[in-house]
């Protein structure tokens, strides 16, 4: 791939990126969230078109209009969100889309599947439903899908995200086998130990640019981590005197199951005191989402406890927690934060509908709600055409301003924010964080999840990192050390 450039609106996702991979090698691509790794790969396997640049496969120039065309040229991807359909059998999943004719020859298909599997050291119950597969098993099936379609270039995006160490090792054994057989493997990952142990070359992307490309043998974990997160901050940090108060949130030994039955949180433990803004850093999929939802009351832990604002949160519904002072800025404002068809006025009460002044003894106080809506809209200068217009009339950024402002009203005591400044420019971001800082100064506390480490380092009092479902706190002496936290995030020590 040469000179690949991709621009999404105002954001340059990829800026003249070059990538060269050779046969029989495992090549890693590393970088933070938003660095452009996934975008680059999506272009390679046909889901996206580059604005500029060329792709050559085995010397031939190609242009992939769809993933089908990519597969036809031998390029396939195993994505993080597996394309396995649980209701179908393993065999059916394998052949779907590449059936080889109108009639399915199940017996010969199964024979071929078995031989492919044995080559890789896999084993499958071909007639069993794919729902019975573990995440590791599903991934193996995904790899077999690529082999079935005779892919010669295989892209794996965060393959070990859901795997146990043992499964991950087994996966790499298979990948080695494939590489030995002449396949080309591109590994997109955050996990530096894997890169150091199993890959031959590594490329670092940051902010859409190719920062470095070197042989693994010539670099170290520390080196790479530094390249990934970049140099020291140029921005001056003005840290206001920070003296934390009483504990507002105590999480101990929290374990939560994820959507696919795997353990998404493993023994998470941390505390939050009044006046404090705690940042949770980590790459997407490390368990932040599950942590957020569990503290919000939307998910039940299988182990551990949460003490929130002096109450044992077990058994407290989300509505109860909100009544006690919990506020949420959800990750996806469209799906989780607003009702698009409703007016701004009506949306202003969402989440707060039972609290005065929105409610007056079970009844909705329309006038008060209108006042609150005006306040909320004005707080962060939400640009809108009228409070009675639907939320869908607002741009994404303004919706975010509205949702953020809403979470700060009515005396919040504990604020849970997931990417609170998503989609906002620098000024808007600062406004939101200033607002959060303000309520914390009055005694509240805030938990902020973000994929932007710089943002967290600048705005939060403390930053911890999540990786693979566990929470890591940097030692006190390195409390806000960029390198240290970066290393915790990507699993490098």
């Amino acid at each position, binding site marked *: 791939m040469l000179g690949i450039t991709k621009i999404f609106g105002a954001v340059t996702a990829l800026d003249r990126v070059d990538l060269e991979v050779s046969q029989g090698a495992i090549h890693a691509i590393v970088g933070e969230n938003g660095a452009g790794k996934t975008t680059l790969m999506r272009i390679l396997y046909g889901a996206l078109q580059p604005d500029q640049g060329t792709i050559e496969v085995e010397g031939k120039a190609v242009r992939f209009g769809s993933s089908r065309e990519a597969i036809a040229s031998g390029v396939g991807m195993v994505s993080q969100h597996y394309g396995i359909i649980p209701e179908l059998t393993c065999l059916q999943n394998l052949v779907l889309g590449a059936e080889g004719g109108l009639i399915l020859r199940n017996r010969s298909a199964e024979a071929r599947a078995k031989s492919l599997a044995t080559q890789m050291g896999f084993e499958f119950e071909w007639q069993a439903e794919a729902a019975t597969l573990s995440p590791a098993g599903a991934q193996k099936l995904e790899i077999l899908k690529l082999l079935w379609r005779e892919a010669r270039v295989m892209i794996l995006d965060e393959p070990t995200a859901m795997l146990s160490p043992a499964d991950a090792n087994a996966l790499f054994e298979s990948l080695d086998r494939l590489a030995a057989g002449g396949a080309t493997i591109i590994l997109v990952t955050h996990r530096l130990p894997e890169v150091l142990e199993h890959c031959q070359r590594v490329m670092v992307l940051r902010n859409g640019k190719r920062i470095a490309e070197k042989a693994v043998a010539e670099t170290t974990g520390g080196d790479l981590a530094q390249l990934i997160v970049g140099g020291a901050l140029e921005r001056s940090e003005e840290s206001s005197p920070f003296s934390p108060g009483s504990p507002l949130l105590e999480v101990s030994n929290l374990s939560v199951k994820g959507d696919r039955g795997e353990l998404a949180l493993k023994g998470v433990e941390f505390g939050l005191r009044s006046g404090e803004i705690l940042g949770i850093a980590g790459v997407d999929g490390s368990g932040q989402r599950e942590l957020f939802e569990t503290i*919000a009351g*939307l998910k039940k832990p299988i182990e551990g406890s949460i003490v929130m604002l002096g109450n044992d949160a077990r058994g407290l*519904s*989300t*509505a*109860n*927690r*909100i009544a006690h002072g919990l506020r*949420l800025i*959800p990750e996806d404002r469209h*799906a*989780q*934060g*607003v*009702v*698009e*068809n*409703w007016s701004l006025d*009506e949306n202003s*009460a*969402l*989440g707060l*509908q*039972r609290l005065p002044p*929105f*409610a007056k003894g*079970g*009844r*909705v106080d*329309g006038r008060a709600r209108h006042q609150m809506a005006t306040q909320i809209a004005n707080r962060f200068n939400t640009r809108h055409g009228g409070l009675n217009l*639907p939320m*869908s*009339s607002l741009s994404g950024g303004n919706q975010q301003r509205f949702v953020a402002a809403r979470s700060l009203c009515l005396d919040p005591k504990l604020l849970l924010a997931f990417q609170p400044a998503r989609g906002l420019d620098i000024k808007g971001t600062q406004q939101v964080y200033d607002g959060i800082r303000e309520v914390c100064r009055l005694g509240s506390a805030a938990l902020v999840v973000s994929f932007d480490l710089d943002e967290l380092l600048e705005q939060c009092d403390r930053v911890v990192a999540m990786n693979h479902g566990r929470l890591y706190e940097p030692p006190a002496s390195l409390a806000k050390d960029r390198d240290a936290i970066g290393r915790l995030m990507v699993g490098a020590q």
Partner: protein
Amino acid sequence: MIWRLIAMVVGACAILVGAVLVAHQSPVESLHTLIHGSLGSPAAIAGTLREATPLLICGLAVFIALRAGLFNIGVEGQLLVGACTCAVVAIRLPGVPGMILGVVAGMVAGALWALPAGLIKAYRNGHEVITTIMLNNVAIFITSALVAGPIKDKTQADTATAYVAASSRMPWLYRTPTVEVNFSLVLGILLAIGMALWLKRTVAGYELQAVGANRVAARFAGVSPQKVTMLAMTISGALGGLAGAVQVLAYEGRFYDGFSPGYGFDALGVALLAGGSAYGVLPSSLLFGMLSKGGTALQIDGVPKGITTVVLGMLILIAAAIRYRKVTTTDA
């Protein structure tokens, strides 16, 4: 909004014209018959209002379920069990107590009839469309069996219960030999107003609509979709039962086999055409009442009643399609 109305009217007229032409009838004449038959005289208007009343109450029943994101197709069955229960209770109690108790009994019966569907949807995620339709059929058969046997009035040949005492009947607001308007119409209008206010002005109403509009966001806002589902289905069923009780107490005086000409089914159309506000159910049920009454007049004229049903079906599709277009164009 105005485009939607225009498109709907144009579409309906086109279909009406087409069908009527097929029937070798003059479309203008037929339209005239329809309008005259439903609105042309005090008697006609009264008849239209009478048709509209059960449609109004049933429409409100379906409407509130729709606002919560549920399809209650079972209003027909809820109406039947409500009517049957009301008749049984009211027969035994003369006077106003009988009327009140009959209404309450009808509402309770209707609510209970909707309960299984609500439970299955809330806790087992079994689609309420199928369960309510099934319960409809069960209701039809059970009430039919009851009215042919245990609760039948043995002194008469009709497959029906005895008549409810005159003192328990719902009062007439205005009654001449040709024109009758019953209190139940006022009841229906009050219910519509009540529902509109409840949805707009109470926290419970707000939360119910939140679940219907965006289930996930409602959860993040602290609302329990299961509780809302149960509440909505219960209220919906109670209103369906109320419609049945009203039919007994206001118009029929007794319960008999074949009691409902499909009010519950038409109610889905009424609710869908009502738009976003409970107030909309008022004109919508009036429209359906007009088409029903006018359709009868057309029938006398030689045009089969079915044409009005076709028109209504197409109106629903056109309305739904227009709503879809509206949604996508504001998505810029």
